[in-house]
């Protein structure tokens, strides 16, 4: 009897889990499809003539018409979209008009650059952001709290473009602490074998430690600049969450029992804001993965942000759709990951 009840329970749980998975997959698909349709429509509303972008200002009428036909722009919009979906189903994102390369190979090159920068910036932001928030919440209104607030305010309000240029001026041009813009010095460009597209990993795998060090020398400054942004967000939100918990009864109880301030903060309050922490980290990471156009521009970093912006300016629809799909996919997946982590760590959400 008991055995069959457990079995039925298990089956129910399995069924619930399965249907949950299917629902999330379906919603993921619908979200991405909606995103695609919307972007597709918007791209065609743009006041820029994509044919002109490809054929140029000077081309003859016959060249113009030929390019228009080659791009499939002489077809009605729904037909164009359907064709795009057909190709997509085969894993073909089309050809970019500007680079004249398949969008998949363009993205396969640009995304690792962004991934590397974003992940390192995320780690930077998380480590310093959490530390600052804890220091601030340790004694609200104290010196450390004000300092943390100042730093996070700066990170929020200083334009990243300006911060990047200033950082280059100071750390690259004056102090020579950074190796400057780009991902590697020119001499390595000949020798680096791109395996993963992540320069840190590739240079490590090449066994050339000097190249690896050079990669770090190039990477740390854009990481710090970009990390400042997510650090600011993490500090502010986490500090607020920590302070909110601070007023709750279990904290008063712990205090009455004589627990030290540090102990209360680290062992009682901090674990209770893990939900907020996971959400904030997930969102920050997703934002960073979109690629930061300005940071990538200043540091000559060939990432997704710049790729998408160049495509937008040129009305390069396949490149726009491909990048949107990639970024959208990252967002949706990270959201799902945040949900799953919250579900795992917080029994109340089950």
């Amino acid at each position, binding site marked *: 009897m008991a055995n069959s009840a457990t079995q039925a329970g298990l089956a129910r749980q399995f069924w619930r889990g399965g249907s949950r998975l299917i629902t999330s997959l379906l919603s993921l698909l619908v979200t991405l499809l909606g995103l695609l349709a919307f972007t597709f429509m918007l791209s065609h509303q*743009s*006041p*820029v*003539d994509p044919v*002109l*972008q*490809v*054929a*140029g*200002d*000077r*081309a*003859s*009428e*016959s*060249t113009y018409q*030929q*390019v228009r036909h080659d791009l499939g722009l002489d077809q009605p919009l729904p037909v164009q979209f359907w064709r795009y979906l057909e190709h997509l189903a085969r894993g073909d994102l089309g050809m970019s*008009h*500007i*680079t*004249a*390369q398949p969008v998949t190979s*363009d993205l396969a*090159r*640009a995304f690792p650059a962004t991934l590397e920068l974003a992940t390192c910036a995320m780690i930077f932001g998380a480590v310093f952001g959490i530390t600052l928030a804890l220091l601030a919440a340790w004694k609200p209104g104290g010196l450390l709290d004000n300092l943390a607030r100042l730093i996070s305010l700066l990170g929020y309000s200083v334009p990243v473009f300006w911060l990047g*240029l200033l950082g*280059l*001026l100071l750390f*690259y*041009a004056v102090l*020579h*602490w*950074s*190796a*400057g*813009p*780009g991902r590697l*010095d*020119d*001499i390595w*460009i*000949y020798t680096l074998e791109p395996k993963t597209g992540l320069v840190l990993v590739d240079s490590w795998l090449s066994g050339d430690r*000097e190249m690896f*060090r*050079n990669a*770090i*020398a190039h990477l*740390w400054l854009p990481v710090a600049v970009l990390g400042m942004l997510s650090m600011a967000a993490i500090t502010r939100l986490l500090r607020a969450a920590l302070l909110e918990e601070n007023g709750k009864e279990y904290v008063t109880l712990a205090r009455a029992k004589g627990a030290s301030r540090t102990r209360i903060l680290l062992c009682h309050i901090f674990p209770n804001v893990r939900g907020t922490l996971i959400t904030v980290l997930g969102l920050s990471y997703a934002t960073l993965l979109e690629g930061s156009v300005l940071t990538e*521009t*200043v*540091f*000559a970093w*060939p990432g997704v942000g*710049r*790729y998408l912006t*160049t495509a937008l*300016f*040129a*009305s390069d629809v396949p490149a726009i759709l491909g990048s949107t799909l990639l970024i959208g996919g990252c967002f949706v997946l990270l959201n799902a990951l945040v949900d799953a982590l919250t579900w795992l760590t917080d029994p109340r959400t089950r």
Partner: protein
Amino acid sequence: MKPFAYAVLTLALSASFAANAATPPDTLVIAQSIDDASSFDPAEGFELTSVQVFTNLYQRLVQSDPQNPNELKPTLASSWEAGKDNRSLTVTLRDGATFASGNPARPEDVIFSLSRVVKLNLDPSFILTQLGWTKENVESQLKKIDANHVQISWQANVSPAYVLSLLAAPVASILDAKTVLANQQNNDLGNKWLATHSAGSGPFQIRRYVPHEVVLLTANPRSPGDAPKLKNILIKNVPEAATRRLLLEQGDTDIARNLGVDQISALKGKPGVKPLAIPMASLYYIQFNIEAQPALKNPALWQAARYLFDYHGIADDLLKGQFQVHQSFLPAGFPGALNETPYQYDPEKAKAILAKAGLKDVSFKLAVSNQPPYLDIAQALQASFAKGGIKVELIPGLSTEVATNVKAHKYEATLNAWGADYFDPNTNASAFAWNPEDGSKTLAWRSNWHIPELSKQTLAATAESDPAKRIALYQAMQRDVMKNSPYVIGLQARNLIAVRDNLKGYVQGINPDMVYYSQVSK
């Protein structure tokens, strides 16, 4: 604290490595934006980045002499002779010339290279189709005579001298047909492969091209002519001008292209760098769409506008060093260019002209790219036109958006730039002074300006064989357009670049393709 100390140590170590960075001695490193490049196929590439590279990858039958662009220099051809009817050229190929692959340059390569431009019908093909070449007839116009002679014929009424200047354009680059055909896909005449590879006889060849990242060229020791002095040319994408300046100051690049006025002034007097302002064949002008409103059709308005363009205020103060005043449709440095500047900024005179014509409360919308220097110039024009009683409303947009609207006649006036496509006066005459009413969207067409007489003169000038007479024709046309046309040509741009001062032998000419890397050393 330990991890922190370790991190600082690592940084310091990498910093010590970064401190002594200099460009490799056998490589010329260039920082510029390469985001515009779409293809390195001479039949397709028509963007600044690709055109600047073509002269270094490919040779044409004839080419402008780098030191004296007005002179055509035999390059892959050793000599040529015009046919008796002035409708053909017989070209002798240079003895023993080979491509980077080692294949010899043959008449077949000339025929293949020129005919594929017409057959592919891409962006720059209009330069060669002017000769009356079509997909159907082009093969019959190009004939192999013997192992090193080829005959080039045409149907259009143009002089052999004019044809030679078209054959000197990058689109007429001679390709290694055997290599290209070995790499063609779906009968595309190698178009896809050539987008990222090269198959020419120029001093360099493409070793690696990563879009939006880097173009790496390596020396072609087989190139007929002077062997290149450096082993590699590395063109890296640095989209931000301020970053390019920093790289140059640090010695991490040898040439920084397309700098702004502020970057150049910051570089002045800095040790180790040499700022350069190279005149370009790029004219900045206002153009009216004369059908957009009645006032814009009135020649008095065009005349008044010539006195409301603050030429020297922009060239000498606002964008000092980036422009020179120029008022005719052929840029200074071009054969036949008229360098007189009869118009000065004079709001009172403009007011008088408007009053005499009974034009009151004139206002128009000026479509302009939102990029520098367009918007800066447009704002200056807005102020100077206001002094003459003309209200200018600025409509800033993406440059492609402005181009789209102008080509659809959806604008009142626009501030734009026009660059030369090949080194012959006709490149600009056929834009400013030609409206054949056959669907060609020339600048005159974009203005709705109907000019049968000027159009006839433009055609006649391409048929004229006597160079002196030809120049006289272009000068007369420039005077006509300067005095009475819906354009106000005001400025000629200079290309602001900066180089390291140990660089020797770098030559850059007035046209975008006149960028010569082969004699550079350091």
